[in-house]
C-alpha cells in the first residue's frame, strides 16, 4: 500500500499536530492563548485534532482587554461550551481597578495585555503558552523559533535563541521560565484561510462583510465604542466592512469589504495589497520595530 503524498495543508497540519503532542508530552501545564481571532481558532481546531478522540488536555487563556466585540465573546463562549474546554479569563480591567495598571491617555489597551498575561502565567504556573503567531506576519517574527524560551519577566532575547534542528524541539526551562509555542509558525495568511475553508471552521461573524457605524482615524475605520471615539471632528458613518484581525476595539480597524464568505475572503486576500497587520492594527504602526519591542517585553 503506498501512502498518498501530502499536500501543503496536510504537511502544515501534521507539523502543527506534532508540535502540540511534543508539548503535551514534555510540559506539565500548557495553555492555549485564545483571542477569538482566526489564528487562535485554527489553533484550537488543530489541538482538538491532535488528541482526538480524547479531549484537549489543557485549558484556554483569554486576556480580555474589556474592549470587545460582543460577537467575539459570544463566539468564544459557544466554542468553549461545544468542545467542553476550560477557559481562564484575565480581565485587564481588574488590573486597572486595583492600580497594577494605569489606563493610557489614548485609551488603547493592547499594550496593557502584557502584565495580566505574565501575572496569569505565573499564578497558574503555566509552563508552555501556545500562540497563533506566524512568521510571515511581520519581519521581526521571521527569526522566531517554534518553541521560544521566555525568562521569568516574559522577555524574549533574540540574541540567545536556541538553534532549532530537524523536528527535535528543546523545551527545557528553569522554574519560573516558560516557553511560547507557535504551532502555525510556517503558515501564511492564505494557508490559514484555505485551511478554514477545507476544515469548515466557524469564525466570529465580524470577519465577514457587514454594515457598521465607523469613523476614520489614522487611515483606519474604527468602530464606535466605550473605548473612546469618535472624538473632535471624527464623524460616524455607515460602511460595509469586515475585520481581518480580532483585537482591542480601540485600535483594531475594519476594512471596507463586501466579502461575505470564506471563498470571497480568499479571493480578496489573494488580491490584497496590504499585509493584515499593516492594514488594521494601529499599534503596529507606531514604529517599524514596534513588534520587536513588545516581544522583548513579553507580549507575543
Amino acid at each position, binding site marked *: 500500500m503506498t501512502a498518498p503524498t501530502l499536500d501543503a495543508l496536510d504537511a502544515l497540519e501534521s507539523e502543527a499536530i506534532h508540535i502540540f503532542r511534543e508539548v503535551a508530552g514534555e510540559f506539565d501545564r500548557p495553555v492555549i492563548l485564545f483571542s477569538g481571532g482566526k489564528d487562535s481558532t485554527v489553533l484550537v481546531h488543530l489541538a482538538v*485534532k491532535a488528541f482526538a478522540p480524547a479531549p484537549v488536555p489543557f485549558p484556554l487563556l483569554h486576556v480580555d482587554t474589556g474592549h470587545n466585540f460582543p460577537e467575539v465573546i459570544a463566539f468564544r463562549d459557544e466554542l468553549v461550551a461545544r468542545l467542553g474546554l476550560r477557559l481562564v479569563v484575565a480581565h485587564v480591567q481588574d488590573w486597572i481597578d486595583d492600580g497594577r495598571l494605569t489606563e493610557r491617555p489614548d485609551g488603547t489597551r493592547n499594550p496593557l495585555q502584557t502584565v495580566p498575561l505574565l501575572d496569569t502565567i505565573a499564578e497558574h504556573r503555566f509552563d508552555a503558552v501556545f500562540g497563533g503567531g506566524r512568521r510571515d506576519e511581520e519581519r521581526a517574527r*521571521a527569526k522566531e523559533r517554534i518553541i521560544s524560551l521566555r525568562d521569568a519577566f516574559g522577555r524574549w532575547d533574540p540574541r540567545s535563541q536556541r538553534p532549532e534542528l530537524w523536528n527535535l524541539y528543546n523545551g527545557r526551562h528553569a522554574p519560573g521560565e516558560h516557553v511560547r509555542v507557535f504551532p502555525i509558525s510556517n503558515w501564511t495568511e492564505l494557508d490559514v484561510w484555505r485551511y478554514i475553508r477545507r476544515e469548515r471552521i466557524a469564525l466570529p461573524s465580524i470577519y465577514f462583510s457587514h454594515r457598521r457605524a465607523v469613523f476614520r482615524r489614522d487611515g483606519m475605520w474604527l468602530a464606535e465604542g466605550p473605548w473612546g471615539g469618535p472624538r473632535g471632528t471624527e464623524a460616524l458613518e455607515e460602511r460595509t466592512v469586515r475585520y481581518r484581525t480580532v483585537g482591542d476595539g480601540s485600535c483594531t480597524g475594519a476594512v471596507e469589504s463586501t466579502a461575505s464568505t470564506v471563498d470571497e475572503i480568499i479571493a480578496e486576500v489573494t488580491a490584497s495589497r496590504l499585509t493584515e497587520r499593516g492594514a488594521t492594527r494601529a499599534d503596529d504602526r507606531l514604529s517599524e520595530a514596534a513588534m520587536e519591542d513588545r516581544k522583548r517585553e513579553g507580549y507575543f
Partner: protein
Amino acid sequence: MTDLLRFATAGSVDDGKSTLVGRLLFDTKSVLADQIEAVTRASVDKGLATPDLSLLVDGLRAEREQGITIDVAYRYFSTPKRGFVLADTPGHVQYTRNTVTGASTAELAVLLVDARHGVVEQTRRHAAVLALLRVPRLVLAINKIDLVDYDEAVLTAIGKDFAGLAASLGFESVVTIPVSALVGDNVVERSERTPWYDGPTLLGYLESVPVTGPEIDRPFRMPVQYVIRDHATDYRGYAGQVGAGTVAPGDEVVVLPAGIRTSVTSVDTADGPLPAAGAGRSITVRLADDIDIARGDLLAAAGAAPAVTNELDATLCWLADKPLRPGARLLLKHGTRTTPVIVGALGERLDTDAVAWVEGTEQLGINDIARVALRTADPLPVDPYAEIRATGSFLLIDPPSGNTLAAGLVGHPLQVS
C-alpha cells in the same frame, strides 16, 4: 494539488543572498504594498535610486543596526504550483550553526557564489555542511552575471570547478543556474542576455523538483510522542509523526527498545482511519496487543528494525560557545526520548577549509565538526543518519542551562573522497 517545498539558501556575505531572496519574494508577488513602501522609503533615505530588495528580508533590530544577517530567518512565498518555506541561512562567523539549522529541515539547498570570484573558501565550507546534513538536492546559483558581461565561459569554468567539489562530497547531481539577483535574470523570468543557457530559471526548477525526500522509501519508523486514551470510548492509541517509510493496518511492527513484536490494527487521524500513512504524516496507531508503550519508545518495521545500543559512534556539529571536552555529562534527545550521556573520546575533526577529515583535538569549540564516541544511559534504537534522518539525528543539551549544544548525526554521514 499544491504541495510544499522546504529549502535553504546559503552563501557568503555580499554574494547577494538577501537580494536574491528579496527578488524571489518580489517577483512572485509575495511582498505587499506596505512592505514595498517601507523598503522604498528606506532605500531613498540611503540615497539609492532603485528599491534595495535585500531590505525586504532583513529582520531584527540588531541586524539592521549592524547591517548584517546573523540568524536563520524563515520566508514564505507561493506560486500556483507550490508553496515554499525558505530557511535563509546567513553566512559569516556563525555559518555552521546557521547552515546546520537551515539544512536540517531542507529538501533542497541553493548555494550562491559571486560570478566574479567563483568557488571560494566559504563555498567549500557551506557545501561540506550541506553534504554532512545530507540535503538531498543542491542548486549552485552563480550570481552577479551582469558584472561578468553574461559570459558563458565564466559559468562553465565555475560550474566545472564546483562539480569536482560536489562529487568529492558525494552529491549525486548539482544544477547550476546563472542569475543576476539585482537585475532579475533567470531568477523568475528567463533572461534574454543568456541565450547560451538552456536550463530552467531558479524558480522554474524550485517548482518542478520532487518534494518527497528519500525518507519515504526507507523502512517504517515512528517515535511515540503521546499515548492517547479516551475512557469514554475505551480508546488507546500511540500518537506520532511518521519519521520514515509508510505504515498500514496489518503491518508487523516492533516496539523499541523493548523489542516486543505486534501488528498494526488501525492508522487513525481525527478525520478517520487511513489505508496507509507515509513520512511526515501525524497519525495515531492502534496495535493488536496490549503492550506497555510510553513516550520515548519507537515503533519500527519488524522486518527491518534498527539496532538498539548504548554506544554511539557519531558526528557532532558543536553549536555552543562553551567548549566540549571528553568526559562531559550531558543530555541527549533522540526522537521523543531524552537520556543522560557521557562523552567519550573525540575523533577526527572536519577541516572545512580543506574539506578533509584531520587529526582530532583535545576539545571542540563553536562551529567545530568532529567524530565522537558517546555512551547513553538508556539504550537507543538508532539508524545511521545517512540512511534515515529521523532516527539518525539527535541533540546534545546542557543540563544546567537547558541550552542546545550540538546537532548530532549517528555514524559518519560525510565521507570525503
